[in-house]
């Protein structure tokens, strides 16, 4: 099963209840012919939009989000144009009150720069840039950040260049997906590519580092082609939105029980106690770590589900970002189920290029090297350049050195995924040995690894090891 096991337009078949396997909290409405027919009518569409209206009511962008959903529902033929309109609406219309004029100009310059690169990659396919647009772009971006971070600060040139790079850092993966689309047979022109530069459904989440859906190439494949497909996508979107609210209630209950009723501090609080040697029982530390792991899973699921639900409502039947991660029976499977689009980003930009070019004569090394390039180097690259504020404040190398804990995290993660992929799958019979034990081991691996999932503001790595030893009662 995959992150998107619930996706696909599929055939509508009469539904019969087979207890308990088919028992669902939210029934598979998209398989009910009467529901799909109703969703194609005006009252049906209004009902679906009303669900999203209620669901997004607490979002500060409620009105523009809902307006765009109404427009994409009413005018499916103009869906992609509306997507471009939506992507430009936020930086240039909605944010204009809070953004400075120079930020608006730099945003426009970033988009023009993206258009020029897109055009260059198509016009000059045999040039160095045309053959390797991603390496050129990401490498050029990294070097530019390094150079500009060491220009004398305080000057106008430094300020303008840094602001341009900071805004560019918000768009690099969207631009990267556009550049990947340059070689596609039916690629979209740049006007439509713009719609994938932070599509409007990303505004559902106010938690920025959650990765985007894939680019225009993916959107073309998952776009609804007729009214029945649109109805199915929208019903699935509404279901996912409702499910996200069920999970958010579960998250609130978990937080209330663990941190309220049981009085267990959060994991960052426990780590902060551990650094100055404030005594606490080892089992409290362990409980806080397990709780942090579960809370994070729920938080990521809720946010991802809301983004994907909005995307589906707009007519794109995207796969889920998170799909039953605790059912994973291997480390690689968990990685695929936990943050599907982040994993896909690393696969598209780091795994495939490495796999296609290097170590072709050594199959196992080839797979391991590509996995390492994605899960370690790509992961580091992604997270490091999210810290543009720290890079400006502390300098490039100092910020990179501060990433040593996260670097350790990515190395262990890459080794774990690499070994998991190289191992032959062992089919063990029975629910206990075949499902439960592997799932607990995998969850345990990721739970422990979370001790090191810290960015540049982390305490020294030895404090993380000490905390880890303490929660297993190995040191006092």
């Amino acid at each position, binding site marked *: 099963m995959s992150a998107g096991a619930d*996706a696909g337009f599929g055939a509508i078949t009469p539904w019969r209840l087979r207890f308990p396997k088919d028992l669902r909290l939210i029934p598979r409405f998209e398989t009910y012919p009467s529901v799909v027919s109703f969703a194609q009518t005006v009252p049906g569409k209004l009902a679906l939009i009303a669900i999203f209206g209620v669901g997004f009511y607490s979002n500060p962008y409620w009105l523009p989000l809902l307006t765009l959903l109404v427009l994409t529902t009413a005018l499916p033929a103009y869906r992609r144009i509306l997507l471009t309109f939506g992507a430009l609406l936020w930086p240039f219309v909605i944010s204009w009150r809070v953004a400075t004029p120079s930020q608006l100009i730099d945003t426009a310059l970033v988009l023009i720069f993206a258009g020029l690169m897109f055009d260059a990659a198509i016009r000059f396919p045999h040039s160095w840039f045309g053959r390797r647009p991603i390496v050129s772009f990401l490498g050029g971006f990294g070097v530019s950040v390094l150079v500009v971070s060491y220009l004398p600060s305080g000057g106008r040139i430094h300020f303008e260049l840094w602001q341009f790079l900071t805004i560019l850092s918000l768009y690099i993966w969207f631009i990267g997906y556009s550049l990947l689309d340059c*070689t596609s047979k039916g690629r979209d022109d740049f006007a439509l590519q713009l719609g994938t530069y932070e599509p409007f459904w990303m505004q559902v989440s106010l938690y920025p580092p959650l990765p985007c859906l894939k680019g225009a190439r993916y959107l073309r494949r998952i776009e609804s082609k007729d009214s029945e497909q649109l109805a199915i996508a929208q019903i699935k979107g509404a279901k996912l939105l409702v499910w996200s609210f069920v999970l958010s209630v579960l998250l609130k209950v978990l937080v209330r029980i663990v941190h309220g009723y049981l009085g267990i501090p959060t994991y960052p609080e426990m780590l902060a106690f551990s650094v100055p040697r404030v005594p606490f029982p080892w089992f409290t530390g362990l409980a806080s770590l397990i709780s942090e792991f579960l809370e994070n899973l729920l938080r990521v699921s809720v946010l991802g589900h809301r983004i994907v639900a909005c995307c589906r409502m707009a007519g794109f039947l995207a796969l889920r970002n998170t799909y039953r991660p605790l059912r994973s029976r291997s480390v690689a499977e968990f990685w695929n189920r936990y943050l599907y689009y982040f994993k896909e980003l690393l696969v598209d930009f780091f795994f495939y290029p490495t796999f*296609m070019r290097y170590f072709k004569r050594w199959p196992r090394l080839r797979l391991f090297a590509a996995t390492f390039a994605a899960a370690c180097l790509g992961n580091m690259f992604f997270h490091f350049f999210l810290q543009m504020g720290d890079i400006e404040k502390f300098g490039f190398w100092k910020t990179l050195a501060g990433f040593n804990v996260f670097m350790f995290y990515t190395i262990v993660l890459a080794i774990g995924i690499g070994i998991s992929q190289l191992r032959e799958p062992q089919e063990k019979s029975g629910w206990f040995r075949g499902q439960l034990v592997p799932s607990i081991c995998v969850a345990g691996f990721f739970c422990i690894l979370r001790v090191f999932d810290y960015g540049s503001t982390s305490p020294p790595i030895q404090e993380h090891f000490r905390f880890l030893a303490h929660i297993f009662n190995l040191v006092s």
Partner: protein
Amino acid sequence: MEPKLAVREFLQNLLARKGDTQPFSDADSVLASGRLQSIDAVEIVVFLEDRFGVDFADIGFDEEKIDTVEDIVSLIG
């Protein structure tokens, strides 16, 4: 064996190994639909390299090129 049959048989085995025995047509997506993952795409790549001498380092890799039986056949054809 005819390329199309070989490709279909390979994909069928790959899906079956993942417990997916649902039928699929030559135009059905296996990757974008989520039935197969990136790690399975890697197996398809290795199969195409070994069996048909396809070199993705030259032609550029794109999951879209190996998403259906038809896509793969047009790639190797």
